[in-house]
Protein backbone atom coordinates (compact mmCIF):
# COMPACT_ATOMS: atom_id res chain seq x y z
CA UNK A 1 0.00 0.00 0.00
CA UNK A 2 2.61 2.50 1.03
CA UNK A 3 4.77 1.45 -1.90
CA UNK A 4 1.89 2.31 -4.27
CA UNK A 5 1.44 5.60 -2.50
CA UNK A 6 5.11 6.35 -2.89
CA UNK A 7 5.01 5.48 -6.56
CA UNK A 8 1.97 7.69 -7.05
CA UNK A 9 3.65 10.60 -5.26
CA UNK A 10 6.78 10.17 -7.36
CA UNK A 11 4.78 10.18 -10.57
CA UNK A 12 2.87 13.31 -9.51
CA UNK A 13 6.05 15.19 -8.72
CA UNK A 14 7.77 14.03 -11.90
CA UNK A 15 4.84 15.28 -13.96
CA UNK A 16 4.74 18.57 -12.06
CA UNK A 17 8.46 19.13 -12.53
CA UNK A 18 8.22 18.36 -16.26
CA UNK A 19 5.42 20.86 -16.73
CA UNK A 20 7.18 23.43 -14.58
CA UNK A 21 10.36 23.14 -16.62
CA UNK A 22 8.40 23.44 -19.87
CA UNK A 23 6.80 26.68 -18.64
CA UNK A 24 9.89 28.19 -17.08
CA UNK A 25 12.65 27.36 -19.55
CA UNK A 26 11.57 29.79 -22.32
CA UNK A 27 11.36 32.59 -19.75
CA UNK A 28 14.84 31.76 -18.47
CA UNK A 29 16.15 31.67 -22.04
CA UNK A 30 14.86 35.11 -22.94
CA UNK A 31 16.28 36.54 -19.71
CA UNK A 32 19.64 34.96 -20.50
CA UNK A 33 19.48 36.32 -24.04
CA UNK A 34 18.86 39.83 -22.76
CA UNK A 35 22.04 39.71 -20.67
CA UNK A 36 24.22 38.05 -23.30
CA UNK A 37 26.69 40.32 -25.15
CA UNK A 38 25.49 41.03 -28.69
CA UNK A 39 28.34 39.25 -30.41
CA UNK A 40 27.81 36.05 -28.48
CA UNK A 41 24.08 36.23 -29.01
CA UNK A 42 24.46 36.12 -32.76
CA UNK A 43 27.39 33.70 -32.90
CA UNK A 44 27.20 29.96 -33.55
CA UNK A 45 26.88 27.98 -31.43
CA UNK A 46 25.26 30.44 -29.04
CA UNK A 47 26.39 29.84 -25.46
CA UNK A 48 23.41 29.02 -23.24
CA UNK A 49 25.06 30.77 -20.32
CA UNK A 50 26.83 33.90 -21.56
CA UNK A 51 30.57 34.17 -20.92
CA UNK A 52 29.82 37.25 -18.85
CA UNK A 53 26.62 39.05 -18.04
CA UNK A 54 26.48 42.33 -19.88
CA UNK A 55 24.01 45.14 -20.28
CA UNK A 56 25.25 45.81 -23.80
CA UNK A 57 22.29 44.24 -25.59
CA UNK A 58 19.76 45.96 -23.35
CA UNK A 59 21.50 49.29 -23.86
CA UNK A 60 21.44 48.74 -27.60
CA UNK A 61 17.70 48.12 -27.39
CA UNK A 62 16.98 51.13 -25.21
CA UNK A 63 19.04 53.44 -27.41
CA UNK A 64 17.29 52.37 -30.59
CA UNK A 65 15.15 55.08 -32.11
CA UNK A 66 11.68 55.29 -30.66
CA UNK A 67 12.07 52.71 -27.91
CA UNK A 68 12.22 55.00 -24.88
CA UNK A 69 9.35 57.24 -26.00
CA UNK A 70 7.25 54.17 -26.78
CA UNK A 71 8.04 52.73 -23.35
CA UNK A 72 6.71 55.93 -21.77
CA UNK A 73 3.72 55.87 -24.10
CA UNK A 74 2.94 52.34 -23.01
CA UNK A 75 2.96 53.34 -19.36
CA UNK A 76 0.73 56.34 -20.02
CA UNK A 77 -1.77 54.40 -22.09
CA UNK A 78 -1.90 51.65 -19.47
CA UNK A 79 -2.51 54.17 -16.66
CA UNK A 80 -5.30 55.84 -18.62
CA UNK A 81 -6.80 52.45 -19.37
CA UNK A 82 -6.81 51.63 -15.66
CA UNK A 83 -8.50 54.93 -14.84
CA UNK A 84 -11.22 54.57 -17.47
CA UNK A 85 -12.02 50.91 -16.79
CA UNK A 86 -12.31 51.43 -13.05
CA UNK A 87 -14.30 54.66 -13.17
CA UNK A 88 -16.71 53.28 -15.75
CA UNK A 89 -16.74 49.62 -14.77
CA UNK A 90 -16.62 49.52 -10.96
CA UNK A 91 -20.11 51.07 -10.51
CA UNK A 92 -21.54 48.43 -12.83
CA UNK A 93 -19.70 45.71 -10.94
CA UNK A 94 -21.16 47.06 -7.71
CA UNK A 95 -24.66 47.11 -9.20
CA UNK A 96 -24.38 43.51 -10.38
CA UNK A 97 -23.06 42.44 -6.98
CA UNK A 98 -25.60 44.26 -4.82
CA UNK A 99 -28.90 44.50 -6.65
CA UNK A 100 -31.37 42.15 -8.19
CA UNK A 101 -32.93 44.13 -10.97
CA UNK A 102 -34.69 43.41 -14.21
CA UNK A 103 -32.23 42.81 -16.99
CA UNK A 104 -29.42 41.76 -14.65
CA UNK A 105 -28.90 38.44 -16.39
CA UNK A 106 -29.16 40.04 -19.82
CA UNK A 107 -26.53 42.55 -18.80
CA UNK A 108 -24.20 39.82 -17.56
CA UNK A 109 -24.68 37.87 -20.75
CA UNK A 110 -23.99 40.97 -22.83
CA UNK A 111 -20.80 41.54 -20.87
CA UNK A 112 -19.69 38.00 -21.59
CA UNK A 113 -20.54 38.37 -25.27
CA UNK A 114 -18.24 41.35 -25.69
CA UNK A 115 -15.34 39.08 -24.78
CA UNK A 116 -15.95 37.23 -28.02
CA UNK A 117 -15.46 40.35 -30.07
CA UNK A 118 -12.37 40.12 -32.29
CA UNK A 119 -9.93 42.98 -31.87
CA UNK A 120 -9.51 43.63 -35.62
CA UNK A 121 -13.23 44.28 -35.86
CA UNK A 122 -12.83 46.84 -33.09
CA UNK A 123 -9.64 48.51 -34.21
CA UNK A 124 -10.05 48.94 -37.96
CA UNK A 125 -13.39 50.80 -38.01
CA UNK A 126 -12.39 52.83 -34.96
CA UNK A 127 -9.23 53.97 -36.72
CA UNK A 128 -11.43 55.48 -39.42
CA UNK A 129 -13.70 57.07 -36.81
CA UNK A 130 -10.75 58.34 -34.79
CA UNK A 131 -9.36 60.15 -37.81
CA UNK A 132 -12.65 62.03 -37.96
CA UNK A 133 -12.67 62.73 -34.22
CA UNK A 134 -9.03 63.81 -34.15
CA UNK A 135 -8.12 60.91 -31.88
CA UNK A 136 -6.04 59.02 -34.43
CA UNK A 137 -2.39 58.55 -33.45
CA UNK A 138 -3.15 59.80 -29.93
CA UNK A 139 -2.48 57.97 -26.70
CA UNK A 140 -5.97 58.77 -25.42
CA UNK A 141 -7.48 57.05 -28.44
CA UNK A 142 -5.49 53.88 -27.80
CA UNK A 143 -6.44 54.01 -24.12
CA UNK A 144 -10.13 54.30 -25.06
CA UNK A 145 -9.93 51.12 -27.09
CA UNK A 146 -7.90 49.26 -24.47
CA UNK A 147 -10.45 50.33 -21.89
CA UNK A 148 -13.24 48.93 -24.06
CA UNK A 149 -11.40 45.62 -24.12
CA UNK A 150 -10.77 45.72 -20.38
CA UNK A 151 -14.18 46.93 -19.29
CA UNK A 152 -15.97 43.55 -19.40
CA UNK A 153 -13.22 42.06 -17.25
CA UNK A 154 -13.34 45.01 -14.87
CA UNK A 155 -17.10 44.57 -14.38
CA UNK A 156 -16.70 40.85 -13.76
CA UNK A 157 -13.77 41.24 -11.36
CA UNK A 158 -15.25 44.13 -9.40
CA UNK A 159 -18.61 42.43 -9.05
CA UNK A 160 -16.78 39.42 -7.64
CA UNK A 161 -14.99 41.67 -5.20
CA UNK A 162 -18.12 43.48 -4.03
CA UNK A 163 -19.93 40.16 -3.56
CA UNK A 164 -17.11 39.34 -1.16
CA UNK A 165 -17.86 42.45 0.91
CA UNK A 166 -20.84 41.58 3.14
CA UNK A 167 -23.92 43.61 2.34
CA UNK A 168 -24.80 43.57 6.03
CA UNK A 169 -21.85 45.80 6.88
CA UNK A 170 -23.12 48.50 4.57
CA UNK A 171 -26.64 48.13 5.91
CA UNK A 172 -25.31 48.41 9.45
CA UNK A 173 -23.54 51.63 8.57
CA UNK A 174 -26.77 52.95 7.11
CA UNK A 175 -28.79 52.11 10.21
CA UNK A 176 -26.13 53.96 12.17
CA UNK A 177 -26.81 57.08 10.16
CA UNK A 178 -24.65 56.87 7.06
CA UNK A 179 -26.11 57.78 3.72
CA UNK A 180 -26.06 55.21 0.92
CA UNK A 181 -23.00 56.86 -0.59
CA UNK A 182 -21.39 57.36 2.81
CA UNK A 183 -21.81 53.69 3.64
CA UNK A 184 -20.21 52.76 0.35
CA UNK A 185 -17.26 55.10 0.76
CA UNK A 186 -16.62 54.35 4.43
CA UNK A 187 -17.36 50.64 4.54
CA UNK A 188 -17.47 48.88 1.20
CA UNK A 189 -14.70 50.76 -0.58
CA UNK A 190 -11.94 50.23 2.00
CA UNK A 191 -12.77 46.54 2.18
CA UNK A 192 -12.80 46.23 -1.59
CA UNK A 193 -9.56 48.14 -2.08
CA UNK A 194 -7.15 45.20 -2.43
CA UNK A 195 -9.44 43.61 -4.96
CA UNK A 196 -9.81 46.85 -6.86
CA UNK A 197 -6.02 47.11 -6.97
CA UNK A 198 -5.93 43.69 -8.60
CA UNK A 199 -8.56 44.77 -11.11
CA UNK A 200 -6.43 47.82 -11.87
CA UNK A 201 -3.37 45.67 -12.41
CA UNK A 202 -5.30 43.40 -14.70
CA UNK A 203 -6.34 46.37 -16.83
CA UNK A 204 -2.74 47.60 -16.80
CA UNK A 205 -1.38 44.29 -18.06
CA UNK A 206 -4.07 44.03 -20.71
CA UNK A 207 -3.13 47.44 -22.07
CA UNK A 208 0.60 46.86 -21.69
CA UNK A 209 0.32 43.65 -23.72
CA UNK A 210 -2.10 44.74 -26.42
CA UNK A 211 -0.60 45.13 -29.85
CA UNK A 212 -3.12 44.91 -32.70
CA UNK A 213 -5.27 47.90 -31.82
CA UNK A 214 -2.19 49.91 -30.82
CA UNK A 215 -0.42 49.37 -34.11
CA UNK A 216 -3.56 50.11 -36.13
CA UNK A 217 -4.51 53.25 -34.21
CA UNK A 218 -1.12 54.95 -34.13
CA UNK A 219 1.52 56.05 -36.55
CA UNK A 220 4.12 57.98 -34.57
CA UNK A 221 2.88 57.73 -31.00
CA UNK A 222 3.51 54.02 -30.74
CA UNK A 223 3.23 51.97 -27.59
CA UNK A 224 6.12 49.59 -26.97
CA UNK A 225 4.49 46.48 -28.50
CA UNK A 226 3.32 48.50 -31.51
CA UNK A 227 6.80 49.96 -31.93
CA UNK A 228 8.39 46.52 -31.83
CA UNK A 229 5.79 44.96 -34.11
CA UNK A 230 6.01 47.73 -36.69
CA UNK A 231 9.78 47.30 -36.85
CA UNK A 232 9.71 43.52 -36.68
CA UNK A 233 10.67 42.78 -40.24
CA UNK A 234 13.69 45.07 -40.29
CA UNK A 235 14.97 44.87 -36.74
CA UNK A 236 18.06 42.83 -35.85
CA UNK A 237 17.44 39.65 -33.89
CA UNK A 238 19.01 40.85 -30.64
CA UNK A 239 16.72 43.88 -30.68
CA UNK A 240 13.72 41.60 -30.97
CA UNK A 241 14.87 39.31 -28.15
CA UNK A 242 15.36 42.16 -25.71
CA UNK A 243 12.03 43.57 -26.85
CA UNK A 244 10.38 40.30 -25.90
CA UNK A 245 12.17 40.37 -22.56
CA UNK A 246 11.11 43.93 -21.79
CA UNK A 247 7.48 43.27 -22.62
CA UNK A 248 7.32 40.04 -20.64
CA UNK A 249 9.00 41.03 -17.38
CA UNK A 250 6.53 43.56 -15.89
CA UNK A 251 3.68 41.25 -16.81
CA UNK A 252 5.25 38.46 -14.77
CA UNK A 253 5.52 40.75 -11.78
CA UNK A 254 1.87 41.71 -12.08
CA UNK A 255 0.83 38.09 -12.35
CA UNK A 256 2.25 37.60 -8.91
CA UNK A 257 -0.03 40.26 -7.47
CA UNK A 258 -3.21 39.28 -9.24
CA UNK A 259 -2.84 35.51 -8.89
CA UNK A 260 -5.47 35.33 -6.16
CA UNK A 261 -8.09 36.93 -8.36
CA UNK A 262 -7.46 34.99 -11.53
CA UNK A 263 -9.82 32.22 -10.57
CA UNK A 264 -12.56 34.51 -9.35
CA UNK A 265 -12.42 36.27 -12.66
CA UNK A 266 -13.16 33.23 -14.69
CA UNK A 267 -16.36 32.48 -12.89
CA UNK A 268 -14.76 30.11 -10.49
CA UNK A 269 -14.24 29.91 -6.80
CA UNK A 270 -11.97 32.33 -5.03
CA UNK A 271 -9.43 31.21 -2.49
CA UNK A 272 -10.50 28.20 -0.54
Amino acid at each position, binding site marked *: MSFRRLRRQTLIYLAAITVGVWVLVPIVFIALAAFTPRRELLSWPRPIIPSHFSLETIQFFLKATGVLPSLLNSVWVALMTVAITLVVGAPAGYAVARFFFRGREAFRLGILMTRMFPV*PLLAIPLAVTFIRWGLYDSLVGVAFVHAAMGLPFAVIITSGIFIGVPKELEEAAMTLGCSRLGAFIRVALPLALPGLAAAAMFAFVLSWNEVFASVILTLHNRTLPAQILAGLRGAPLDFRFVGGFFMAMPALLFMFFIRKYLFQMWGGVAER
Partner: protein
Amino acid sequence: MKLRKFLRTDTLLPYWLLLPTLAYLLLFFLFPLVSAIGLSFRTPEGRFTTEYFLRMLNDRLFLPALRYTFFLALTVVPLQVITALAISLLVNTRFVGSRFFLYLCVLPLGISDLAAGLIWLSIFTRHGYLNSILYSLGLIERPLVFLSAENPGWVFMSIVIAEHWRATAIVLVILVAGLQMISRDYLEAAEVLGARPWQKFLYVTLPLLKPSLQSALIIRTIFAFQVFAVVEALGGHMVPVLASAAYEWYAFYFQRHVAAAYAVIIMAGSVLMTLILFRFLRMRREMIRT
Protein backbone atom coordinates in the same frame (compact mmCIF):
# COMPACT_ATOMS: atom_id res chain seq x y z
CA MET B 1 -37.02 50.74 8.53
CA LYS B 2 -33.97 52.11 6.84
CA LEU B 3 -33.43 48.76 5.18
CA ARG B 4 -36.82 48.72 3.54
CA LYS B 5 -36.34 52.27 2.37
CA PHE B 6 -32.95 51.35 0.95
CA LEU B 7 -34.49 48.55 -1.01
CA ARG B 8 -37.44 50.54 -2.31
CA THR B 9 -36.09 53.95 -3.17
CA ASP B 10 -33.09 52.51 -4.90
CA THR B 11 -34.88 50.66 -7.66
CA LEU B 12 -33.43 53.02 -10.22
CA LEU B 13 -29.96 53.15 -8.71
CA PRO B 14 -28.59 49.98 -10.35
CA TYR B 15 -29.54 51.31 -13.75
CA TRP B 16 -27.71 54.54 -13.11
CA LEU B 17 -24.68 52.56 -12.07
CA LEU B 18 -24.84 50.45 -15.22
CA LEU B 19 -25.34 53.39 -17.53
CA PRO B 20 -21.68 54.38 -18.03
CA THR B 21 -20.66 50.82 -18.84
CA LEU B 22 -23.59 50.31 -21.19
CA ALA B 23 -22.94 53.56 -23.01
CA TYR B 24 -19.25 52.81 -23.27
CA LEU B 25 -19.80 49.31 -24.59
CA LEU B 26 -22.36 50.47 -27.11
CA LEU B 27 -19.99 53.12 -28.36
CA PHE B 28 -16.98 50.85 -28.54
CA PHE B 29 -18.51 47.52 -29.55
CA LEU B 30 -21.80 48.00 -31.32
CA PHE B 31 -20.71 51.07 -33.20
CA PRO B 32 -17.48 49.54 -34.60
CA LEU B 33 -19.40 46.39 -35.54
CA VAL B 34 -21.88 48.41 -37.57
CA SER B 35 -19.24 50.61 -39.11
CA ALA B 36 -17.03 47.62 -40.00
CA ILE B 37 -19.89 46.15 -41.95
CA GLY B 38 -20.48 49.57 -43.48
CA LEU B 39 -16.82 49.94 -44.42
CA SER B 40 -16.67 46.58 -46.09
CA PHE B 41 -19.94 46.87 -48.04
CA ARG B 42 -20.26 50.56 -48.88
CA THR B 43 -18.27 52.84 -51.15
CA PRO B 44 -17.18 56.19 -49.74
CA GLU B 45 -20.12 57.67 -51.66
CA GLY B 46 -22.50 55.41 -49.77
CA ARG B 47 -23.48 52.92 -52.45
CA PHE B 48 -23.66 49.21 -51.70
CA THR B 49 -20.77 47.30 -53.20
CA THR B 50 -19.21 43.87 -53.07
CA GLU B 51 -16.00 45.22 -54.58
CA TYR B 52 -14.04 45.07 -51.32
CA PHE B 53 -15.11 41.55 -50.56
CA LEU B 54 -14.21 40.46 -54.08
CA ARG B 55 -10.82 42.07 -53.72
CA MET B 56 -10.33 40.20 -50.48
CA LEU B 57 -11.41 36.92 -52.05
CA ASN B 58 -9.04 37.46 -54.97
CA ASP B 59 -6.20 38.42 -52.65
CA ARG B 60 -3.47 35.83 -53.01
CA LEU B 61 -3.17 35.78 -49.22
CA PHE B 62 -6.83 35.07 -48.59
CA LEU B 63 -7.09 31.32 -49.06
CA PRO B 64 -3.78 30.48 -47.37
CA ALA B 65 -4.68 32.82 -44.50
CA LEU B 66 -8.09 31.22 -44.08
CA ARG B 67 -6.57 27.75 -44.23
CA TYR B 68 -3.77 28.48 -41.78
CA THR B 69 -6.10 30.20 -39.33
CA PHE B 70 -8.46 27.22 -39.32
CA PHE B 71 -5.63 24.69 -39.11
CA LEU B 72 -3.99 26.58 -36.28
CA ALA B 73 -7.22 26.73 -34.31
CA LEU B 74 -7.96 23.07 -34.96
CA THR B 75 -4.45 22.02 -33.91
CA VAL B 76 -3.77 24.31 -30.99
CA VAL B 77 -7.11 24.39 -29.19
CA PRO B 78 -7.61 20.61 -28.71
CA LEU B 79 -3.98 20.26 -27.64
CA GLN B 80 -4.44 23.04 -25.11
CA VAL B 81 -7.64 21.57 -23.71
CA ILE B 82 -6.06 18.14 -23.29
CA THR B 83 -2.90 19.53 -21.68
CA ALA B 84 -4.84 21.86 -19.41
CA LEU B 85 -7.15 19.04 -18.36
CA ALA B 86 -4.18 16.87 -17.43
CA ILE B 87 -2.48 19.69 -15.51
CA SER B 88 -5.68 20.65 -13.71
CA LEU B 89 -6.18 17.05 -12.56
CA LEU B 90 -2.58 17.09 -11.39
CA VAL B 91 -3.23 20.28 -9.41
CA ASN B 92 -6.42 18.79 -8.03
CA THR B 93 -4.53 15.95 -6.36
CA ARG B 94 -3.49 18.80 -4.03
CA PHE B 95 0.03 17.58 -3.57
CA VAL B 96 2.31 19.61 -1.32
CA GLY B 97 3.38 22.61 -3.37
CA SER B 98 0.46 22.39 -5.79
CA ARG B 99 -0.48 26.02 -5.23
CA PHE B 100 2.98 27.17 -6.17
CA PHE B 101 2.92 24.81 -9.14
CA LEU B 102 -0.38 26.28 -10.29
CA TYR B 103 1.00 29.79 -10.03
CA LEU B 104 3.98 28.73 -12.11
CA CYS B 105 1.72 27.23 -14.76
CA VAL B 106 -0.38 30.36 -15.19
CA LEU B 107 2.66 32.63 -15.53
CA PRO B 108 2.44 32.77 -19.35
CA LEU B 109 -1.03 34.28 -18.94
CA GLY B 110 0.66 37.61 -18.21
CA ILE B 111 2.90 37.43 -21.25
CA SER B 112 1.64 39.06 -24.40
CA ASP B 113 1.36 37.21 -27.67
CA LEU B 114 4.09 39.36 -29.21
CA ALA B 115 6.47 38.78 -26.30
CA ALA B 116 5.72 35.05 -26.38
CA GLY B 117 6.42 34.98 -30.11
CA LEU B 118 9.75 36.73 -29.58
CA ILE B 119 10.66 34.46 -26.67
CA TRP B 120 10.19 31.43 -28.92
CA LEU B 121 11.98 33.22 -31.72
CA SER B 122 15.07 33.26 -29.51
CA ILE B 123 14.72 29.48 -29.31
CA PHE B 124 13.88 28.64 -32.92
CA THR B 125 16.15 30.93 -34.93
CA ARG B 126 19.11 29.50 -36.80
CA HIS B 127 21.54 30.30 -34.00
CA GLY B 128 18.85 29.93 -31.38
CA TYR B 129 18.80 28.00 -28.14
CA LEU B 130 17.26 24.86 -29.61
CA ASN B 131 19.98 24.50 -32.24
CA SER B 132 22.68 25.41 -29.73
CA ILE B 133 21.46 22.71 -27.34
CA LEU B 134 21.20 20.12 -30.10
CA TYR B 135 24.73 21.02 -31.14
CA SER B 136 26.20 20.83 -27.67
CA LEU B 137 24.56 17.43 -27.25
CA GLY B 138 26.33 16.39 -30.42
CA LEU B 139 23.11 15.69 -32.27
CA ILE B 140 23.70 18.09 -35.15
CA GLU B 141 26.73 19.48 -36.95
CA ARG B 142 25.21 22.55 -38.52
CA PRO B 143 22.16 24.51 -37.35
CA LEU B 144 18.77 23.31 -38.59
CA VAL B 145 16.62 25.96 -40.20
CA PHE B 146 13.21 25.93 -38.55
CA LEU B 147 11.90 29.28 -39.66
CA SER B 148 12.19 29.55 -43.41
CA ALA B 149 9.77 29.92 -46.28
CA GLU B 150 10.95 26.58 -47.67
CA ASN B 151 9.58 24.76 -44.64
CA PRO B 152 6.18 26.26 -43.81
CA GLY B 153 5.49 23.04 -41.91
CA TRP B 154 8.26 23.80 -39.43
CA VAL B 155 7.13 27.41 -39.10
CA PHE B 156 3.62 26.19 -38.45
CA MET B 157 4.92 23.78 -35.80
CA SER B 158 6.84 26.54 -34.03
CA ILE B 159 3.73 28.71 -34.00
CA VAL B 160 1.73 25.83 -32.55
CA ILE B 161 4.34 25.31 -29.84
CA ALA B 162 4.52 29.00 -28.96
CA GLU B 163 0.74 29.36 -28.90
CA HIS B 164 0.43 26.24 -26.81
CA TRP B 165 2.99 27.52 -24.35
CA ARG B 166 1.39 30.96 -24.13
CA ALA B 167 -2.32 30.33 -24.01
CA THR B 168 -2.83 26.97 -22.32
CA ALA B 169 -2.84 28.86 -19.02
CA ILE B 170 -6.22 30.44 -19.68
CA VAL B 171 -7.81 27.03 -20.24
CA LEU B 172 -6.06 25.80 -17.12
CA VAL B 173 -7.47 28.63 -14.99
CA ILE B 174 -11.00 27.92 -16.18
CA LEU B 175 -10.68 24.17 -15.63
CA VAL B 176 -9.09 24.49 -12.19
CA ALA B 177 -11.88 26.84 -11.15
CA GLY B 178 -14.39 24.31 -12.48
CA LEU B 179 -12.75 21.40 -10.67
CA GLN B 180 -12.83 23.28 -7.39
CA MET B 181 -16.57 23.67 -7.73
CA ILE B 182 -17.12 19.93 -7.99
CA SER B 183 -18.16 18.71 -4.58
CA ARG B 184 -15.92 16.03 -3.11
CA ASP B 185 -19.10 14.22 -2.02
CA TYR B 186 -19.75 12.98 -5.54
CA LEU B 187 -16.30 11.50 -5.82
CA GLU B 188 -16.55 9.95 -2.39
CA ALA B 189 -19.94 8.48 -3.26
CA ALA B 190 -18.46 7.01 -6.43
CA GLU B 191 -15.63 5.58 -4.37
CA VAL B 192 -18.03 4.00 -1.90
CA LEU B 193 -19.83 2.44 -4.84
CA GLY B 194 -16.56 0.91 -5.92
CA ALA B 195 -15.59 3.11 -8.85
CA ARG B 196 -12.02 2.88 -10.05
CA PRO B 197 -10.04 6.10 -10.52
CA TRP B 198 -10.60 6.19 -14.27
CA GLN B 199 -14.30 5.52 -13.77
CA LYS B 200 -14.51 8.39 -11.30
CA PHE B 201 -12.86 10.60 -13.88
CA LEU B 202 -15.02 9.46 -16.78
CA TYR B 203 -18.42 9.32 -15.09
CA VAL B 204 -18.16 11.94 -12.34
CA THR B 205 -15.46 14.51 -12.95
CA LEU B 206 -15.74 14.87 -16.70
CA PRO B 207 -19.54 15.37 -16.91
CA LEU B 208 -19.48 17.85 -14.02
CA LEU B 209 -16.58 19.69 -15.58
CA LYS B 210 -18.38 20.01 -18.88
CA PRO B 211 -19.60 23.61 -18.48
CA SER B 212 -16.03 24.73 -17.77
CA LEU B 213 -14.67 22.69 -20.66
CA GLN B 214 -17.30 24.21 -22.88
CA SER B 215 -16.50 27.82 -22.01
CA ALA B 216 -12.76 27.20 -22.19
CA LEU B 217 -13.15 25.64 -25.60
CA ILE B 218 -15.24 28.51 -26.90
CA ILE B 219 -13.05 31.26 -25.49
CA ARG B 220 -9.90 29.67 -26.86
CA THR B 221 -11.42 29.02 -30.28
CA ILE B 222 -12.49 32.63 -30.57
CA PHE B 223 -9.07 33.90 -29.55
CA ALA B 224 -7.38 31.41 -31.86
CA PHE B 225 -9.21 33.03 -34.74
CA GLN B 226 -7.56 36.37 -34.04
CA VAL B 227 -4.08 34.89 -33.76
CA PHE B 228 -1.70 37.60 -34.87
CA ALA B 229 1.44 38.66 -33.03
CA VAL B 230 2.85 35.18 -32.40
CA VAL B 231 2.58 34.53 -36.11
CA GLU B 232 4.11 37.89 -36.97
CA ALA B 233 7.02 37.29 -34.61
CA LEU B 234 7.77 33.76 -35.76
CA GLY B 235 6.46 33.52 -39.28
CA GLY B 236 6.29 36.99 -40.73
CA HIS B 237 5.24 36.49 -44.31
CA MET B 238 5.78 32.77 -44.29
CA VAL B 239 2.56 31.73 -42.62
CA PRO B 240 -0.28 34.14 -43.39
CA VAL B 241 -3.29 34.30 -41.05
CA LEU B 242 -6.47 36.37 -41.30
CA ALA B 243 -5.50 38.99 -38.74
CA SER B 244 -2.10 39.57 -40.29
CA ALA B 245 -3.74 39.95 -43.70
CA ALA B 246 -6.09 42.56 -42.21
CA TYR B 247 -3.09 44.34 -40.70
CA GLU B 248 -1.23 44.26 -43.99
CA TRP B 249 -4.11 45.66 -46.03
CA TYR B 250 -4.60 48.40 -43.47
CA ALA B 251 -1.00 49.38 -42.72
CA PHE B 252 0.87 48.67 -45.95
CA TYR B 253 -1.69 48.97 -48.75
CA PHE B 254 -3.81 51.64 -47.02
CA GLN B 255 -7.00 49.82 -48.01
CA ARG B 256 -9.15 50.09 -44.92
CA HIS B 257 -12.20 48.77 -46.74
CA VAL B 258 -10.51 45.48 -47.59
CA ALA B 259 -9.02 45.36 -44.09
CA ALA B 260 -12.54 45.78 -42.69
CA ALA B 261 -13.73 42.94 -44.91
CA TYR B 262 -11.03 40.74 -43.35
CA ALA B 263 -12.17 41.82 -39.89
CA VAL B 264 -15.74 40.86 -40.76
CA ILE B 265 -14.50 37.45 -41.93
CA ILE B 266 -12.65 36.93 -38.64
CA MET B 267 -15.84 37.76 -36.75
CA ALA B 268 -17.94 35.51 -38.99
CA GLY B 269 -15.43 32.69 -38.60
CA SER B 270 -15.40 32.86 -34.82
CA VAL B 271 -19.20 33.08 -34.63
CA LEU B 272 -19.47 30.09 -36.97
CA MET B 273 -17.00 28.05 -34.91
CA THR B 274 -18.84 28.96 -31.70
CA LEU B 275 -22.15 27.83 -33.18
CA ILE B 276 -20.61 24.59 -34.39
CA LEU B 277 -19.14 23.99 -30.94
CA PHE B 278 -22.49 24.68 -29.27
CA ARG B 279 -24.24 22.37 -31.67
CA PHE B 280 -21.63 19.67 -31.28
CA LEU B 281 -21.58 19.84 -27.50
CA ARG B 282 -25.36 19.74 -27.21
CA MET B 283 -25.58 16.75 -29.52
CA ARG B 284 -23.05 14.93 -27.42
CA ARG B 285 -25.08 15.54 -24.31
CA GLU B 286 -28.17 13.99 -25.84
CA MET B 287 -26.15 11.04 -27.03
CA ILE B 288 -24.98 10.40 -23.51
CA ARG B 289 -28.50 10.64 -22.16
CA THR B 290 -30.09 8.16 -24.53
